[in-house]
């Protein structure tokens, strides 16, 4: 069809682009490709507006039936025009063409079609659509059972999904920002701008957020005037005023996607999506956590389609979107247009179309009588008006070529057209009001859901509140802004609401056209038709949640924004109930889909969690130490030397060196807590299972800490430095939890005690110096004033000393290795230097540095428990410390630790193991099975917790929990390890493998 005469001029290179109008920058032309072909557009375009400018409507294929689909909307509610944007690592599936901004060189590809958008083999699915109805797969593919994984499911999965995720890591950066504000205004349309102005003028902090690149909302989507001038001039002035205020933040390209408790809102800013790639070091997107005392929701409304036959044909478009393309982008999406509406607002599209030179074939208004607005439009434009008429079916395949209209008399007429502008009314964008459980309320006059109970501190402005006219939006926004600041204690200010039209919001509901031919889609993306809803109803899925789940309605990337209310209305119609009786749909966050990268921000790759470095880290790396993750810490695990073939080789050498000479190990990661106060002793007695009252000043003692349920939770040493001054260590793994537990006890359980608990973990760089020559080595470090001879500083002695010429230090005669050993602590800034000093001083003694591997070997050789034994299920009795448990005092875990199940003699308890074949390797995680019985669950006697190759013994050794363990010393059992193919005979031994008498530790 030809374009009508007297049309406004067009751009010869973009056939549907008007020469004037809209916000696009015609001074620059940029090129982009769609499915490999090059097109032109302008800055300010979305991909959708640029495609439309080039006469392209067909943008994708539907999910299930692969039906050709066109651009239907001009916003984030778009169900059809989903593209893959960019290529390679930046490939981005399912991007809405209606949201994506055009940039020079943009590459867009259609999805879910093969080999091409134009010719898609999978469109045969459409022929099978009588079978592929809602829920058909629940009834089939059941036999034979194993075919599901092998045959049916792979076939289904091949057809699944729309776009393809990139194959490699996302190269872009993301960041998160927290913002605090008095008033958050969600939406930068006329209501939002008024609210922001009202709040800002009263001096409050304001953040105003809009999803689009330009503020203005429907004021610039429609050809509106404010105060007698084009609305865009007023928008610009409002924007300038806001931008000039220091306490106003304007966030464009930003969508608030979630309402969370406590006035927290999450928003996503598309920082660089409109650029070929982000600027160096700058993020692609930014997650905003906005903490707002008050929020004004001015999120507008989304137009809904009317359900009629083949209403998914490309070229059937929402009427409001048609106006957006004309007024915001200067694009006429079609030349011969049928406008189909059930409301006055939709009818106004006629005016915009005529003004931009399109031929309006007819205005089809389902209402029997012309409203005042419609009559005015019809007489002003002279178009054909069909009242009481409905479009029953669209025809055409890849583009609509006409419609069948059933007139008021029931006659069917065919109208030729290339665009159908449809308006079924508007659904306020109430999603953010429902995230905290608020239930929407049906409004009969406006035929839509309005927000019900609002989240605390939220108010509404504009069409989200049902104020659809521009006048009402402006005044509603102003009132919402003013009330928000008033509630925040600001002086009420009077704000003059600018003049604008108070258009009619009259509507008569029409959800779907009865007796239509063809398929009538409700949810376009998921191919849910009105027939599917009927089927669901027939099968008993009448509840909204059932309907959604059974048909997948509303589950697609458009979140059902154009579908849900229509579906509900159709279900109501079928079941002869009202819409509110039928149910409501509650939206879950996010309001718009959000890239996972943005929700992760900085915290990915190596930055997933912070890394803690111990004081000797730098030195250890210089020495070639291999470091290993221990919680957040990176700890040296072994220090390989030339000629050593693996970690085991190295660990053996390190152990041998410690046992024969001396070794140095960084143990700074242990939790260290300073406990002071006149009741410190009483306090410690209550949190440890053993008696500490008798601990003399200058001494240390081992202590075990239980949970209240009697399970052994942590262990460490308690050193006493003064009458009211203790210094305790916890395991590395439990440092944080143990401190928390102690604070719980001191603040909540026994606040009457005078005790102060202060973490000192990081104050001290602490090194274990272990081995027969440890004292000699230390002698070279410790200032001569201090006697550290075995007599002067015996086992379990502690003292405050100085080292290296006056550096304050703490010395502890403790041993995890079983050798004569010390732990020496200096202020952490000297940690690196002390390590170097110890190393230098140790040379003459043949000292080595050792890491967590050798540390582990030696503690296993000594039978000391550690993480694998402290697994959260073991009691003091299980680990052989039952004798330490005090019977005389109250302490955490005392009472419940005495429950029968906790003292059951059948509980596996700690013993040692060595392989019968001394060359055999042991592995922890193996289970113990007595000889001569089957390896079954009934015969499972326990499990190996820790193993090591013991250089001192020349074979592997292990610790583990064995039923009746201590009474089975000498027995041979199987260490059964089927997941690693192991089945090793082991002898049960005492859990001490070196120096059973414990003489070496005393020197």
């Amino acid at each position, binding site marked *: 069809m030809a374009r009508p005469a007297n049309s406004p001029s067009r751009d010869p290179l973009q056939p549907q682009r008007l020469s004037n109008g809209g916000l696009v920058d015609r001074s620059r032309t940029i090129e982009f490709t769609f499915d490999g072909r090059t097109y032109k557009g302008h800055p300010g375009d979305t991909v959708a507006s640029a495609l439309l400018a080039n006469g392209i409507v067909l943008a994708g294929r539907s999910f299930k039936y692969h039906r050709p689909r066109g651009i239907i909307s001009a916003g984030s509610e778009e169900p059809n025009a989903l593209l893959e944007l960019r290529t390679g690592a930046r490939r981005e599936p399912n991007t809405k063409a209606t949201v994506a901004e055009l940039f020079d060189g943009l590459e867009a590809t259609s999805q879910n079609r093969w080999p091409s958008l134009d010719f898609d083999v999978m469109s045969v699915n459409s022929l099978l659509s009588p079978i592929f109805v809602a829920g058909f797969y629940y009834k089939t593919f059941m036999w034979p059972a194993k075919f599901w994984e092998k045959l049916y499911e792979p076939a289904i999965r091949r057809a699944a999904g729309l776009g393809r995720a990139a194959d490699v890591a996302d190269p872009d950066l993301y960041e*998160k920002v927290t913002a605090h504000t008095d008033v958050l205004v969600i939406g930068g349309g006329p209501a939002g701008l008024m609210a922001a102005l009202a709040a800002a003028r009263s001096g409050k902090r304001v953040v105003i957020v809009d999803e689009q690149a330009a503020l203005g909302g429907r004021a610039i989507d429609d050809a509106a005037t404010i105060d007698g001038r084009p609305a865009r001039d007023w928008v610009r002035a409002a924007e300038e005023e806001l931008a000039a205020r220091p306490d106003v933040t304007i966030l464009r390209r930003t969508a608030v996607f979630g309402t969370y408790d406590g006035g927290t809102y999450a928003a996503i800013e598309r920082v660089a999506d409109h650029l070929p790639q982000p600027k160096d070091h700058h993020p692609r997107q930014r997650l905003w956590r906005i903490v707002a005392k008050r929020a004004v929701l001015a999120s507008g409304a989304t137009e809904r389609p009317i359900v009629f036959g083949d209403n998914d044909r490309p070229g059937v478009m929402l009427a409001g979107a048609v106006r957006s393309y004309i007024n915001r982008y200067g694009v006429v999406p079609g030349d011969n247009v049928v406008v189909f509406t059930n409301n006055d607002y939709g009818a106004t599209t006629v005016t915009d179309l005529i003004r931009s030179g399109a031929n309006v074939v007819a205005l089809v208004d389902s209402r029997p009588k012309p409203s005042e607005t419609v009559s005015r439009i019809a007489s002003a434009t002279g178009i054909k008006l069909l009242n009481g008429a409905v479009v029953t079916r669209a025809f055409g395949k890849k583009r609509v070529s006409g419609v069948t209209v059933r007139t008021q008399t029931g006659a069917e007429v065919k109208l030729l057209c290339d665009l159908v502008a449809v308006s079924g009314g508007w659904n306020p964008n109430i999603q953010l009001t429902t995230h905290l459980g608020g239930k929407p309320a049906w409004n009969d006059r406006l035929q839509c859901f309005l927000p019900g109970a609002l989240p605390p501190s939220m108010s509404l402005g504009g069409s989200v509140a049902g104020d659809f006219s521009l006048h009402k939006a402006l005044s509603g926004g102003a009132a919402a802004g003013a009330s928000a600041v008033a509630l925040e204690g600001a002086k009420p200010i009077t704000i003059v609401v600018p003049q604008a039209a108070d258009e009619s919001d009259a509507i008569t509901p029409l959800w779907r056209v009865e007796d239509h031919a063809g398929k009538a889609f409700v949810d376009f993306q998921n191919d849910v038709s009105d027939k599917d809803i009927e089927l669901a109803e027939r099968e008993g899925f009448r509840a909204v949640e059932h309907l959604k789940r059974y048909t997948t309605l509303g589950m697609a990337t458009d979140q059902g924004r154009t579908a849900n209310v229509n579906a509900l209305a159709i279900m109501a119609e079928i079941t002869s109930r009202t819409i509110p009786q039928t149910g409501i749909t509650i939206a879950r966050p996010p309001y718009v889909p959000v890239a996972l990268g943005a929700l992760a921000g900085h915290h990915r790759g190596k930055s997933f969690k912070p890394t*803690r*470095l111990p004081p000797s880290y730098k030195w250890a790396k210089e020495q070639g130490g291999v470091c290993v993750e221990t919680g957040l810490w990176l700890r040296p695990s072994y220090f390989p030397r030339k000629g050593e073939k693996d970690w085991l080789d190295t660990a053996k050498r390190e152990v041998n060196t410690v046992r024969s000479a001396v070794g140095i190990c960084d143990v700074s990661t242990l939790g260290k807590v*300073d406990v002071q106060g006149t009741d410190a002793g009483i306090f410690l007695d209550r949190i440890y299972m053993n008696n500490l009252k008798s601990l003399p000043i200058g001494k240390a003692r081992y202590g075990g800490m239980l949970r209240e349920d009697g399970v052994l939770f942590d262990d460490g040493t308690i050193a006493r430095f003064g009458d009211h001054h203790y210094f305790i260590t916890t395991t590395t793994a439990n440092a944080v939890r143990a401190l928390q537990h102690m604070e719980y006890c001191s603040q909540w359980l026994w606040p*009457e005690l005078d005790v102060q608990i202060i*973490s000192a973990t990081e104050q001290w760089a602490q090194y274990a110096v272990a081995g027969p020559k440890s004292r000699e080595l230390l002698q070279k470090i410790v200032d001569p004033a201090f006697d550290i001879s075995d007599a002067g500083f015996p086992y379990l002695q502690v003292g405050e000393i100085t080292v290296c*010429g*006056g550096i304050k230090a703490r010395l502890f005669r403790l041993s995890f290795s079983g050798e004569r050993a010390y732990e020496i602590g200096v202020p*952490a*800034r000297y940690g690196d230097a002390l390590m170097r000093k110890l190393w230098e001083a140790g040379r003459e003694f043949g000292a080595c540095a050792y890491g967590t591997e050798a540390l582990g070997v030696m503690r296993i050789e000594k039978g000391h428990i550690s993480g694998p034994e402290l697994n959260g299920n073991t009691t003091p009795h299980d680990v052989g410390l039952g004798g330490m448990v005090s019977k005389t005092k109250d302490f955490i875990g005392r009472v419940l630790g005495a429950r029968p199940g906790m003292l059951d003699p059948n509980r596996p308890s700690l013993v040692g193991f060595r392989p019968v074949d001394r060359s055999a390797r042991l592995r922890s995680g193996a289970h113990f099975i007595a000889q001569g019985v089957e390896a079954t669950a009934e015969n499972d006697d326990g499990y190996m917790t820790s193993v090591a190759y013991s250089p001192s013994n020349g074979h592997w050794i292990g610790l583990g929990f064995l039923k009746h363990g201590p009474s089975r010393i000498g027995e041979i059992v199987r260490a059964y390890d089927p997941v690693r193919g192991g089945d090793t005979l082991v002898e049960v031994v005492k859990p001490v493998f070196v120096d059973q008498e414990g003489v070496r530790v005393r020197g």
Partner: protein
Amino acid sequence: MADSTLQPTSAFSHLEPTSLPGIAIEPRENFTMASFAAGKGRLEALAAAIREAYGVELPRRPQRVVGNGIVFVWLGPDQWLAIAERTNNRDLEVELKQRVAGLASVVDQSDGRVIVRVSGPLAREVLAKGVPIDLHADTFGVNAVAITHASHIGVIMWQVDAAPTFELAMFRSYADSFAHWLLEAVASTVPAAA
């Protein structure tokens, strides 16, 4: 320790004092710092002792005060951090133990935490990328203190002046991770930082 053979080393392996348009960053380690917590029932006596020795009132809410070269930072209920330049081997643990003996538990923290100073008109914008609290001048302000976290790392922070200058103290072992985040946040904020 002038005559010691041990030299202190920095916990930061890649953070140098940096000055860019709108923002300056400076790691600080050469200070003496001690925490002290009031003994039960000794709060007023402790406050009096501090008043007498340093001429300041111990803050009872998240604030800092400066007296006699010492910055007193609120650290939680009945707890404070005292920080001073480490000149002439000043050792606040030793000094405070004398001043508040019997009134408070004093613990040396000079090495437990390092401090990063962030200063300049862009400081708030940069910090907001990791620090979740409201740093607006009307809310936080000079001498305000907060114990919170930045990019998953616990920090104690306070505002020194209206430049604005902030100082953030974190456990020593986190120094490099913190610096890594901070430099990334600076780079994404300051146009010239690339």
